[in-house]
């Protein structure tokens, strides 16, 4: 739940930020941190609960919600000597499930921080309240490590049941030093009626930003005070193929600063220019090639005719020459890692070249230095990522430029390279930063670019199956599947420390999830280790009862690789935009020798759907080799052939409709009937189904 500056090095004039500790993390994430207007000592005072809220049995705005946060308040307050947060939450319980979930309340805090003014109250629908104070909470130590303790205050709330309103408030000290920033989700798994974040008597300058909140109101904002009010926040629920959570879920951020921290106080244009300039200069100085880099680069590109070829040579050299410590481990690499981690100064590209080991960013820096050595115009590019947020073009967005790549000018364009991402071949970026905004760190001007999305053709899945079908509908044959680009990288990366038997088990499971009676034998992998693509697998497949028998006829779904696959989208409606991990394409080539004594009965081809060369589509071809008594089936699918992989929520019905149509076409069947006579009946040519 917390943010942290992750620039990789400390920017000028900025204090190292204090990260949000686990106490606050738990506290805010689990208990919807909030605040009362001021520190109240002694007996807690409770605000009256409106009769309507006590009586209501269901959330009016979001029917079916198990609970509703009626009020969540959180206040930062400070005196010259200390700072603290006041928290208050009022939750209406609508179901036994919510009573169960909120029946034990925990507040976790560091041993170096304090919690006080702790109180809770449960109010029944009839207005009868029970209050709980400090002594009703149980103290315990959750974790002790190296002299550090994470503590917990726990209240098992008695008699909490559907209909009750439960309130919790406490005060906790907080660090509001310059440079600290905190962020919270204000949109919670349950609906929130009122969410208030206030700043009282701030001793430092600060900035507040909020995202993905429809109804937010910033009031009374000045250098020491402000109130941010948000109303009627819907419950947050994950959906498949989502944009980064922070790009769709309501959240806000407060950053403490002062006039000396120029990065926090500049206007947006000046701020980004300064950031760009700072990183640009730093990178230029770091990647300045020396003679060794120059001679290495020259040798690496020997014979390369074009710029693209030269860059590919350098890219491959970096990936092959340097043992990437983010991906590999061995006794020697552990020593190298220790040496590197113990260093007080950053490792230079020359050292990376000499040591032949480094983290991903060292590999990128070596690549940049080599590229500069042979005359390319190179910059560092700091990129947003789907692992955090893509919405970075705002005054604080630079906090979330977590990934770095190398921008190389080719003509008028910038091309992006990240050989530090070990599995990515030259020309591709890892999928989590595709389509993300990046800042090309130029010292003179701000250059925003968008990382390219590799088209579907770069991530091909090619499946080839040669099968025989018997008269009982059993299918048997050989399969070869190759997975290129992101499609292969995903598995290679996930499986890199697995045993081969584990991989086989996992892969068999995938197949039998789709085809429950499948038997998979002789699994044989190629390119499982190392960075080589495509990842390829061969196996023998036997599927008992693959085809249906309807009386004397056989009903055969020829799309063996997609038969039984679950629908991609099942929900009726969609709240958030749709983001696919990456573009990809599939090419199926299947031949099925039909059982003796059967022939095609008015066979049709599945209906084509969408546009294979456009955003989404599938194209089928069905044929018949009479002499070999063999059915031919081809399927070509692509999502993002035009590199489009993100869609507005409004597109969901159309997108679901297309996927459903593809799913249906994938399940298209061919009817086989017994041959009427010993002689071959002429097979009809396949025609598209209507």
């Amino acid at each position: 739940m917390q943010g942290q500056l992750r620039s990789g090095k400390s920017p000028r004039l900025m204090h190292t930020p204090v990260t949000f500790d686990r106490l606050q993390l738990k506290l805010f994430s689990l208990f919807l941190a909030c605040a009362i207007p001021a520190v109240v000592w002694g007996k807690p005072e409770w605000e009256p609960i409106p009769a309507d809220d006590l009586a209501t049995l269901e959330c009016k705005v979001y029917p079916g919600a198990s609970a509703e946060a009626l009020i969540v308040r959180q206040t930062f307050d400070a005196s010259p000597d200390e700072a603290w947060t006041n928290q208050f939450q009022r939750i209406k319980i609508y179901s036994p499930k919510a009573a169960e979930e909120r029946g034990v309340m925990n507040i976790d805090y560091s041993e170096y921080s304090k919690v006080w003014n702790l109180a809770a109250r449960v109010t029944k629908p009839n207005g009868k309240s029970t209050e709980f104070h400090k002594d009703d909470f149980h103290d315990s130590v959750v974790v002790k490590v190296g002299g550090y303790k994470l503590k917990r205050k726990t209240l098992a709330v008695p008699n909490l049941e559907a209909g009750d309103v439960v309130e919790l408030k406490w005060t906790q000290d907080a660090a509001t030093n310059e440079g600290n920033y905190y962020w919270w989700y204000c949109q919670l798994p349950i609906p929130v009626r009122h969410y208030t974040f206030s700043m009282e008597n701030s001793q430092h300058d600060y900035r507040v930003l909020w995202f993905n909140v429809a109804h937010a109101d910033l009031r009374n904002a000045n250098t020491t005070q402000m109130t941010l009010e948000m109303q009627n926040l819907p419950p947050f629920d994950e959906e498949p193929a989502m944009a980064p959570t922070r790009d769709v879920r309501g959240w806000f951020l407060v950053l403490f600063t002062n006039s000396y921290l120029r990065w926090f106080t500049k206007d947006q244009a000046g701020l980004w220019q300064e950031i760009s300039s700072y990183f640009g200069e730093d990178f230029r100085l770091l990647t300045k090639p020396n003679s060794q880099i120059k001679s290495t680069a020259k040798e690496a590109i020997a014979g390369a005719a074009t710029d693209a070829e030269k860059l590919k040579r350098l890219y491959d050299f970096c990936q092959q020459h340097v043992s990437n410590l983010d991906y590999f481990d061995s006794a020697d690499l552990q020593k190298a890692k220790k040496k590197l981690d113990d260093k007080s100064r950053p490792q230079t590209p020359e050292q990376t070249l000499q040591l032949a080991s480094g983290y991903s960013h060292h590999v990128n820096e070596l690549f940049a230095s080599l590229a500069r050595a042979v005359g390319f115009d190179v910059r560092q590019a700091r990129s947003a990522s789907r692992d955090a947020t893509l919405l970075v073009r705002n005054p604080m967005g630079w906090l979330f430029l977590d990934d770095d790549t190398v921008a190389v000018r080719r003509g008028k364009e910038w091309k992006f390279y990240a050989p530090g991402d070990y599995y990515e071949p030259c020309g591709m970026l890892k999928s989590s930063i595709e389509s993300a905004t990046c800042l090309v760190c130029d010292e003179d001007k701000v250059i925003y670019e968008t990382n390219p999305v590799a088209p579907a053709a770069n991530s091909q899945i090619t499946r080839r199956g040669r099968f025989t079908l018997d008269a009982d509908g059993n299918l048997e044959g050989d399969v070869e599947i190759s997975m290129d680009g992101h499609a292969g990288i995903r598995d290679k990366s996930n499986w890199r420390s697995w045993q081969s038997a584990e991989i086989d088990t996992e892969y068999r499971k995938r197949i039998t999830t789709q085809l429950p009676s499948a038997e998979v034998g002789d699994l044989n992998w190629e390119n499982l280790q190392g960075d080589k693509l495509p990842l390829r697998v061969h196996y023998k497949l036997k599927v008992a009862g693959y085809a249906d028998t309807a009386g004397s006829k056989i009903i055969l779904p020829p799309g063996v690789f997609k038969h039984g696959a679950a629908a991609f989208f099942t929900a009726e409606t969609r709240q958030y935009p749709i983001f696919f991990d990456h573009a990809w394409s599939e090419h199926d080539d299947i031949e099925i020798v039909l059982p003796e004594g059967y022939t095609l009965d008015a066979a049709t081809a599945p209906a084509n759907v969408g546009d294979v060369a456009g955003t989404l589509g599938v194209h089928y071809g069905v044929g018949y080799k009479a002499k070999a008594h063999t059915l031919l089936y081809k399927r070509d699918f692509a999502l993002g052939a035009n590199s489009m992989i993100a869609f507005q929520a409004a597109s969901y019905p159309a997108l679901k409709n297309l996927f459903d149509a593809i799913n249906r076409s994938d399940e298209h069947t061919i009817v086989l009937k017994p041959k009427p006579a010993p002689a071959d009946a002429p097979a009809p040519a396949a025609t598209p189904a209507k």
Partner: protein
Amino acid sequence: MRFPRLPRLHFFAVLFAAIPVIPAFCQSYDTPDWLTATMNLATPENAAHAPAVILLDDTSLEMDAKGVLTEIHREAIRILHISGRDYAAGHATYDGKADRVLEANAWLFRDGKQPRPVKKGDWIDIATNDPGTAIDEYRSKQIDLSGTALAGDVFGYETRVRRPMVVAQLRWSFGALLPIATERLSLAVPPGFSIDDKMFGANQPTLSHSGNTWTWTSTDRPYRPNEPYLDPTARDDADLLINCTAPAGSAAGFPRSFSTWQEVTSMYESLNQGQCDSSAELVAKTHSLTAGCATTLDKIRALGAYVQKIRYIEINEGLRYGYGWKARKASFVFSNGYGDCKDKANLLIAMLREAGIKAHLVIAMIDPDHGFVAHSEFPGPMQFNHAIAGIEVDSSIQLPAVVETEKSGRLLFFDPTDPYTQVGDLPYLIQGTNVQVAENGITGLTRLPRFDAAHDFLVQRHVALTISASETGITAAGQISAAGQSGASLRSDFEKDTQPTELEKLVTHQLSDAFRGALVEDRKTEDNPLLGLCTLSFTCQHPRFVQRLPGNGLVVKLDVLSRHYLPNFSENERRLPIQLQPVMIQDEVVLKLTGGYTVDEVPRKISFESPYGSYAADFSLMRDALVMKRTITIKYLRVPAENYAAVRKFLTDIVRADRSSVLLKKGT
């Protein structure tokens, strides 16, 4: 009920470790002789394909005259593959209020050298609260060197823990997931003290005895990896139960030991004396709940349902005094509205008493991880971890959960901790287990019944399919009803899934993959407590489910309901026994024949049986509909790995038989 955890849990639950008491903050530990001797042992042949192997798992327990154990645990694990580096970790669970971790050392060796010294700061100490536990005295010391360990490394650790025994009994399990070269337990008792040990299990360790020391040793145990539908006992070689007895005249201060079940009952009684109390509010609530109840069973149902709804919250305090077996006062639990299993059972007994119905505390064991079942031959509380209620009923109450018992006659067993299993039924995990009715004069345990698939795991699904006017879409109106444990599972879903999107997921979960793109238009849940039946009704539409054929033909799949209740085995071979979970599915799919369509050929009836279950599908042509009826039964069975192929064949036969496409054609 949370009984004291065992001095030594199963290997996967506990990889021992402890608080280090190291003089210098960053000092690493000297290598002990036992580890030097062990780390060069050859990897056993049966460790093939294992990610790591336990070269030594050695625990020595030394008991003093006060019943305080000093436990020294030594373990050496060789990492065989990088995927096994997570095993370079250990932890020790201990009672934070009673036990003391005296010493903890750990080492990681690579080619005879330590790639990095292990420091005090590498150990962490955490609370082990399970979800729903408000307070738990149990803690765990942990060390994790997985970030450093590589294939070929040997990770070793040694812990010394002082553990006062709560009762003079021990329960010990032999066996683990990883292959083990040597697993050893030794127990030394003071002169004059004696032990009575009983060993259960198929692969019992060898026992050697010298003076006052007993040693059990198990060797060359194989790799037992995770496999689907694993028999929970598959990794347990043996369970050792030990009763320690002080010599006459030395029993003062020595914890209690047990030689009869009556003695165990006496302990419960003394701990729980006065806990089953009452209060004016409790009495008033009991009377209001039972006011409209005409029969004893109605009263039991009303009170049982009330206590089931009380929230489950554990507060584990005073375990060193045996409070793990002590229920909180019924009046306290009633007024607080929460409690753990023994609290809820005790409250129910109190409320039943106020309603004129006699009931007893029943001590039980739920062990989904290892399938341990209490042994009658060994009286002792260490065999249990749960509490339920046994309600005295007469012959007018005929329910599956009624058992004729030794002392109390007919007892209706009921678990108020399970919020979804109704009176008359028992949770799956305690079916077929042995329980102790905490009643004076008992001499043994009572076996709870195990219910068969047809009676307790029945799911009935009915779907009516109507082809749309476009002749490519289909509308389905369905109803899923479940009773017994299947009903409990659906009831649990109903409670958890209240939002429209969650209910939609519940419906789509019941649909076959092929039909899952359907738009769910309507869904309704109903729980009939009298019939014990939970029902999920829905309608949905799939715009492209029907395939048109040239010449006015249609292909319709009747396979619209999921087979997620059936196990799926993807591996060609099996190492460990299987636990088949019972279920009976009765499906009826009615395809309305409209638009002048008739069925080209009615699919054939098919049925078969196997030792593991049965399958039957029947198709009948009514005047304007084709009706498919299908019944699939899976029996509750533990199947040896040798019979894996037969089980798989049975399931494959189901898939093979379960093909339900029909061809429709225009005209007669």
